[in-house]
């Protein structure tokens, strides 16, 4: 097959319109697939050639905004970041991310994730809040200190990890891999002093230790954030703190 030839591949798409449908159903469309086409391209083709009412969410088309996470052949992935022929040359099934409510068709409501993300205080916490008013100092970081959290800061909040997590599948209160990984992203930051503030949030029921290393979150994460790793490293800090062995960070503050 040369690069320009087309191949007809059936797309089975989850459809649900809350205004007219009592239950969701699936519809199958034939998509003319060319090498290099992404699942997002396939959806555009369906919208222009078959059914203009098909809805999904996307923005950047380049794996940056985190809008287009969906279940593609049973796996949570970014539609824009996934080439059709890499998934299957026979058939494609597309559904919204599970573990989130559906607004319409392929559009999940990610609000529950955003709320919990906010709950873990995803910002640098300083004990002395007045520091931010004084512009005579800076927080310098060594490359090693940067590397300790950089990986986890690449999260684009696509929700793929939340859709793959077995605890999320049943525990409606669980904080979930995205927020928990971000808790560690700040914990690992040499400038942050928020451990004590985040501790009770992580330690509550359905918190940090409701993760049991099913590890699927890390497998599906499209940005290499490895949330399962961040979560286990966070657990390590909590356990060290419990037995009094957690090392306090130095202030990270340098006079300019």
């Amino acid at each position, binding site marked *: 097959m040369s690069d320009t030839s087309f191949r007809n591949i059936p797309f089975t798409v989850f459809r649900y319109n809350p205004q007219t449908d009592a239950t969701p159903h699936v519809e199958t469309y034939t998509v003319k697939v060319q090498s290099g086409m992404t699942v997002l391209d396939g959806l555009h083709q369906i919208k222009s050639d078959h059914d203009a009412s098909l809805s999904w969410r996307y923005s950047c088309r380049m794996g940056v905004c985190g809008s287009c996470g969906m279940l593609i052949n049973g796996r949570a992935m970014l539609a824009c970041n996934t080439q059709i022929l890499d998934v299957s040359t026979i058939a494609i099934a597309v559904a919204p991310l599970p573990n989130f409510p559906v607004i319409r068709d392929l559009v999940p409501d990610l609000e529950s994730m955003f709320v919990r993300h906010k709950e873990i205080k995803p910002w640098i916490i300083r004990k002395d809040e007045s520091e931010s008013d004084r512009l005579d100092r800076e927080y310098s970081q060594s490359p090693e200190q940067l590397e300790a959290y950089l990986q986890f800061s690449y999260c684009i909040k696509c929700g793929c990890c939340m859709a793959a997590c077995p605890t999320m599948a*049943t*525990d409606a209160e*669980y904080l979930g891999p995205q927020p928990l990984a971000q808790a560690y992203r700040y914990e690992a930051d040499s400038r942050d002093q928020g451990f004590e503030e985040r501790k009770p949030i992580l330690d*509550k029921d359905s918190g940090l*230790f409701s993760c049991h290393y099913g590890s699927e979150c890390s497998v599906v994460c499209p940005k290499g954030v490895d949330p399962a790793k961040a979560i286990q490293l966070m*657990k390590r800090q909590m356990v060290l703190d419990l037995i009094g062995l957690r090392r306090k960070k130095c202030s990270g503050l340098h006079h300019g």
Partner: protein
Amino acid sequence: MRQTRGWFFHVAAGLALVILLGTHMTIMHLDQVTGGAGNADPALKPVDWENVTQRGDSPWMALFYIAFLGAALFHGLFGTRTILLETDFGARNRKTLTAVIVIVGFGLFIFGSAAAISFVQMSQAVVM
């Protein structure tokens, strides 16, 4: 530290069980492979009365049983609770569930400990 503390004790009990249950399983189910580990008469089954009472003939045995019982009950019931609390059913009945598990745990601990102690006393009488 609610969840962290729970996890910590769960894991500590689990580690104790690797040793305690490991010993128990070796005696009961690997006796032939190990040439009769922990059994007075390797020709008999580990559960035969002679072997059972020989093992029971020591106050240490009562201690072993009680430690074993405590660790296994805690680890097993805490684990069950963890799994159930992750379901909608568990989330709705959190308090009741915890109460039932605590009562079952303590009940069986007291019952099992009493049995272990009186069995060791009985074995000492038999073996003498």
